[in-house]
């Protein structure tokens, strides 16, 4: 260090020369090579890496699509169909991008679900969790604006309905709506700004993902047991163990992705979006993209406009305070017999909402939506806080290595009493 150069361990002269001046190789080695990672990850821990790859795919295909797309109300629809027909491999780029959005939400929903099930949001990972929720909100905004760009009927009416949500707010509501529109209705100025923001936001997501990863590498990963690694025996170097495991998961993910793109590219879309936008005719049955259906169901479950909007936004904003709602010292639901059932029911409620959001707003779906919405919020605001005090968790294993490698995970009686020590 005397010369001001970084003390590099690399032998290759070129690598070493760069590393001494800018230790990116040392950093990569530390964060992705030798990085100590709990040895007991299951395949749920693939989904963070999958989301990262998915984001890269979306950005790459998006940049290439933007080379051919025209953000003008009179040309947007035709320019998308021109991509499908005339641009070399244009259909592939567009279908990868459109289905990539669905894949992204599938991957991220599983990633979030895993975080909730294994208590990854708990101390010391609260900020990591909050950054994740920020990423999810940015994703939703990006996906919504991207869906507007083909300027089909669902694009137009989706944009109209969602932007009108803001009119529910007293005093400033209409001002916000016209700010979003840039006119008296969803029109060319709206399309132009949505295109601009749809291009921008993914790069903001990249920035927050970077922070998400920085926070992760400070606290280290959670794991299925929810107990911190206590000794080197509890961890493995990230490479080659988890690079190999993530690579396998990635290929499986690509297979699912490929089935969608090549054999069912419009399965998750809506046929009405192949009808050019018509401001005079609302389709009889408008629905958002499938990944927004749970929130749409919550919106429609409330008979009051402002109440519905607040509950809809609240359904995600409540995730921000999840680390403080759940005060149980045990992270993993494996050791929380009651909370585990409550959470699986919450999962069912979420899927029920997803289903109801795609149905017309009539009985019995309205009542079902209301029950599911009530449980959705009760889980966060009532059940988790209560269980944190009342629930008696199962005995925790003494250490990760003991649970995984030998002794069948049986724990000395004394250790069971003090769950989740801070390692």
């Amino acid at each position, binding site marked *: 260090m005397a010369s001001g150069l970084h003390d590099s361990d690399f032998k290759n002269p070129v690598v070493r020369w760069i590393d001494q001046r800018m230790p990116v190789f040392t950093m990569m080695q530390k964060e992705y090579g030798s990085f100590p990672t709990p040895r007991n990850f299951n395949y749920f821990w693939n989904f963070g890496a999958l989301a990262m790859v998915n984001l890269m795919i979306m950005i790459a295909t998006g940049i290439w699509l933007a080379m051919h797309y025209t953000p003008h109300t009179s040309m947007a629809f035709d320019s998308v169909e021109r991509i499908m027909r005339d641009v070399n491999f244009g259909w*592939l780029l567009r279908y990868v991008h459109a289905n990539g959005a669905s894949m992204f939400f599938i991957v991220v929903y*599983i990633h979030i679900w895993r975080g909730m099930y294994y208590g990854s949001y708990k101390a010391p990972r609260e900020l990591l969790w909050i950054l994740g929720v920020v990423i999810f909100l940015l994703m939703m905004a990006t996906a919504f604006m991207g869906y507007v760009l083909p300027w089909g009927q669902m694009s137009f009416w989706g944009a109209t309905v969602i932007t009108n949500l803001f009119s529910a707010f007293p005093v400033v509501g209409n001002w916000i709506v016209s700010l979003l529109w840039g006119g008296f209705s969803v029109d060319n100025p709206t399309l132009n700004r949505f295109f601009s923001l749809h291009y921008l936001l993914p790069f903001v997501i990249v920035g927050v993902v970077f922070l998400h990863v920085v926070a992760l590498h400070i606290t280290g990963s959670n794991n299925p047991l929810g107990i911190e690694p206590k000794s080197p025996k509890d961890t493995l170097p990230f490479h080659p163990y988890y690079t190999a495991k993530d*690579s*396998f998961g990635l290929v499986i993910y690509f297979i699912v992705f*490929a089935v969608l793109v*090549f054999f069912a590219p419009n399965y998750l879309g809506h046929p009405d979006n192949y009808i050019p936008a018509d401001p005079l005719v609302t389709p009889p049955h408008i629905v958002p993209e499938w990944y927004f259906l749970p929130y749409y169901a919550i919106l429609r479950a409330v008979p009051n406009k402002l109440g519905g909007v607040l509950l809809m936004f609240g359904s995600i904003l409540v995730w921000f305070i999840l680390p403080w709602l759940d005060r149980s010292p045990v992270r993993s639901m494996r050791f929380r017999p009651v909370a585990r059932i409550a959470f699986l029911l919450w999962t069912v409620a979420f*899927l029920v909402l997803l289903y109801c959001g*795609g149905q017309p707003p009539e009985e019995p779906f309205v009542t079902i939506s209301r029950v599911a919405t009530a449980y959705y919020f009760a889980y966060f605001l009532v059940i988790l806080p209560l269980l944190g005090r009342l629930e008696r968790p199962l005995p925790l294993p003494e250490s990760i290595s003991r649970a995984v490698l030998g002794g069948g995970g049986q724990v000395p009686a004394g250790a069971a009493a003090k769950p989740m020590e801070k390692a």
Partner: protein
Amino acid sequence: MFGKPMFRTTLKAFAVLGALVAATPTPARAAGEVIHIPDTRFSFEGVFGTYDRASAQRGFQVYKEVCASCHSMRLMSYRNLVDLGLTEQQVAAIASQVQVQDGPNDEGQMFERAGRPSDRFRSPFPNMQAARAANNGAAPPDLSVIAKARAGGADYLYALLTGYSDPPAGVTLAEGMSYNAYFPGHQIAMARPLNPDQVEFADGTPATMENMARDVATFLQWAAEPELEERRSMGVKVILFLTILAGLAYAVKRKVWADAH
């Protein structure tokens, strides 16, 4: 610990399937009624299905001689017909039968000229308003991507074209409307478009209503998804490749993890 991985895999599958099933497009609904669209066998169904070129060419003939008097296909160009198995000369001949507007010329005037393969299909009406005015207020939809724009796709188109009948007892039709079993609401502004022997197929196929409907549905499916065959054949190769890669990646993963257990 046995049973846990199984439980987890099941949960995961449950989550993914739940999301997919819930997102399944719901059948066409009209005033709360679910209309069941019968399944028609088409050559392009299934993983290895391809377009029946002869059928699609006949379908183009039906479109040209029947549908095109009201319905535009503004995203299609005559050159696209080469992909349907027509020769360059045939396409040029078809294109030259229509007059298209071009210009302005050096005097600043718009002028008509014979069509070329690079021209878009000529639209029957100059704009939406004219189309609406000429059709009792119901503008005939553009058919370029109609097979993608209707739930049920080609099945729906076939059902609609063959679904005309007299209204059942108790149903009164509005002025100028026809009864169709498969149209949402059952009242359709388009009069029965296909009648037996309306066209004469050069290959001797009898021009029954079913044949014409099937042919035109095939043609419209091709028009909406001209990439379908290339897409599926590429998909088969990609998935084969990925399956082998998955096997290799799993083997590598097992070798790497062999000393960690």
